[in-house]
């Protein structure tokens, strides 16, 4: 498999996981939340300053259909991740000696 094709497959898988499969994820509290409920410190949690953000809790505000709302939030998140992380790694990367910069 060529590298280009491999990366394309990885991106499609990420989009499908975040955009489609996430709808079927368990909605039970995660391990930490559950332990916090059981042992009695869940009430010390405060709402995040970003709790009113348009994508808070992986739901797109203004989109009523839960499947679409969550899927859209996941897809937007994946695209933001792709741009930010690839951009960061591209800046951090070692330039080849031929490049003349180091």
């Amino acid at each position, binding site marked *: 498999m060529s590298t280009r094709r491999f990366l394309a497959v990885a991106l499609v898988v990420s989009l499908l996981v975040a955009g489609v499969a996430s709808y079927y*994820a368990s909605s039970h509290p995660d391990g930490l*939340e559950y332990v916090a409920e059981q042992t009695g410190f869940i009430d*010390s*949690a405060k709402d995040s300053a970003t709790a009113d*953000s348009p994508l808070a*809790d992986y739901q797109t505000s203004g989109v009523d259909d839960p499947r679409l709302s969550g899927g859209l939030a996941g897809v937007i998140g994946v695209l933001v991740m792709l741009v930010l*992380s690839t951009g960061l*790694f591209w800046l951090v*990367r070692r330039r080849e000696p031929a490049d003349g910069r180091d």
Partner: protein
Amino acid sequence: MHVPDGFLDAPTSVATGVVAAAAVAVALRAARHELDDRTAPRAGLVATFVFAAQMINFPVGAGTSGHLMGGALAAVLAGPWTAVLCLAVVLLVQALLMADGGITALGTNITLIGIVTVAVGWAVFVLLRRVLPKRLEMVAPAAAAGALASVPVAALLFTGLFAIGGNAPVDLAAVATAMFGWHTVIGIGEAVITGLVVASVVATRPDLVHGARPLIAERELVTRKVVPS
């Protein structure tokens, strides 16, 4: 295991913030040795995939769930320093965009999920790579073992932070026992996902797996040795 705002007091949150910032600063320099024109785009996709995979909470019985943390996975696929940066970007996007994990808790979350799981996952992986047979088939199981260990260690470290700066007076032994117990079970899920993902990449393009590089180099060396000159 995203820590929300409010669980830990301000001094503890500032302290983990300093630890996280220092680790990210070191990683930004050290990751240069892992990232070049070819590996940088792949590393971006590793971070992106970890973000997507973290959205999938799997049930772990009795009304609770867990999801991949991804430290061991990212370290084996992209290298440990790059993995710290991967998880830092994931946690930043989650906190700012998705309100998943607190803002004042960002340093805590980067420390636990971005540093501890990467460090433990990579350390176990490297140790196993050293003692297991030098074969590509061993990469995925070694990665899975690193993943398995990384989750309960992060959970215990959270308990340690909670003991120092928890904002609620609760029985610490109960917190430690419950955190360790549940996160050992979640660690099994972490191990399964990590093992499957690493195994599929090793099966298609082993050269893209950072943790498999010494084995590939060794394999090429052996090949050269047996070819008659």
